[in-house]
């Protein structure tokens, strides 16, 4: 805990992120370059042909979306239990990225599904769970925006995030159950050929690095905005 609290100080965070940001950005670009290269050069799937390459955009987006929610959950716990001051800012900053990754996952999933199913949407269990996750992100962001008192908004949003965290596995379970009931389709059937694993893992890393980079930038911006505001208030 002491380790974390050392970086709770916004000034410390700014200094730390000043150092890390260039590396994060460079690593992100590198990972995307390698990942996209591997993704485009891997041999096509014997069943799905070239359209399988969408998987390298879709699956990492999906895992990134759930990872972001995990990050928000951890930040919310830190905020509620230990009153870690920067965690509120971090949670709020992360949410739009989670929503974007979820939306990206939905779009790429639909594009991937079209050649297989003939239509863009067939209520596949994973995509349906994803759609619900998108709504959960919207609700979370809406709550932050609706409550004017920032401290209250932070607490309320943290509680909502935790309620969501408990519920999301239940929702996922119920959607899977619903899907088997109605004999739905699925994009990913069976296991992955090992040759696909490398590009997939690299792309997952790339997405996570992208999130880490953009998230850091967004937290820094939030800290700077708050500084600017208190300077303006003090100067009256």
């Amino acid at each position, binding site marked *: 805990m002491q380790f974390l609290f050392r970086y709770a100080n916004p000034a410390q965070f700014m200094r730390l992120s000043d150092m890390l940001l260039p590396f994060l950005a460079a690593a992100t670009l590198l990972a995307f370059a390698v990942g996209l290269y591997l993704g485009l050069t891997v041999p096509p799937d014997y069943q799905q042909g070239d359209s399988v390459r969408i998987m390298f955009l879709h699956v990492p987006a999906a895992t990134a979306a759930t990872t972001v929610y995990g990050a928000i959950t951890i930040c919310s716990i830190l905020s509620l239990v230990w009153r870690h001051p920067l965690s509120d800012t971090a949670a709020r900053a992360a949410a739009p990225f989670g929503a974007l990754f979820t939306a990206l996952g939905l779009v790429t999933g639909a594009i991937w599904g079209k050649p297989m199913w003939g239509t863009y949407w067939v209520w596949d269990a994973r995509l349906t769970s994803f759609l619900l996750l998108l709504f959960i992100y919207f609700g979370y962001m809406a709550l932050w925006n609706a409550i004017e*008192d*920032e*401290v209250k908004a932070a607490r309320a949003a943290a509680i909502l995030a935790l309620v969501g965290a408990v519920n999301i596995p239940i929702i996922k379970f119920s959607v899977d159950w619903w899907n088997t009931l109605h004999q739905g389709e699925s994009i990913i059937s069976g296991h992955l050929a090992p040759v696909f694993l490398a590009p997939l893992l690299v792309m997952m890393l790339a997405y996570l690095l992208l999130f880490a980079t953009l998230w850091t930038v967004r937290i820094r911006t939030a800290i700077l905005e708050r500084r600017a505001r*208190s300077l303006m*208030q003090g100067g009256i």
Partner: protein
Amino acid sequence: MISSLAAEKLACARGERRLFDGLSFTVKAGQALAVEGANGAGKTSLLRLLAGLLTPFAGRVVVRTAQGDSDDAETRARLVGWLGHLDGLKPQMTVREQLAFYAHLYGVAADDALLEQVNLARQADLPCRYLSAGQKRRLALARLLVSNRPLWLLDEPFAALDSAGQALVAQLMARHCGQGGIVIAATHDPLGLGNESLTL
């Protein structure tokens, strides 16, 4: 029964603004404290803090009872008789029903005789929507009496009352202190209780 309440270096913030800082005072059983100050100075916030509804930015509040000392907000809340700006009355419920609700909620028997004391006996079966502002306040006083709590926290207790009503409030406060209770009131008017006063 409460023997004393001590505030130790209380600090309270509203948003970014610090309302008060390093506030310390003690009130013993049978004493009253008037909290004065301009509007927005933090009188209501201080009362809510003492009631356990608000958490202080810094400092603590210690109450001494027969069970010992406690600085826990939940425990303190159970000792509080609260009279805030809002009356807590439902328009659709009658005076008698409203009083009975709060009595049972606070774990005491309902007592219609209290309505006599606050001069609302005739309105016992009148729905609260038909009460005047002064009558609503007096019903709130009856609620305060029925709850039988030792620590009275009153926010502008004389507001909305005519001179008879204000005399009633003063009389009830004096009686409460006489019985060993504590009264802490935010007010612009003097309490007339030979009390201490605190300005924010």
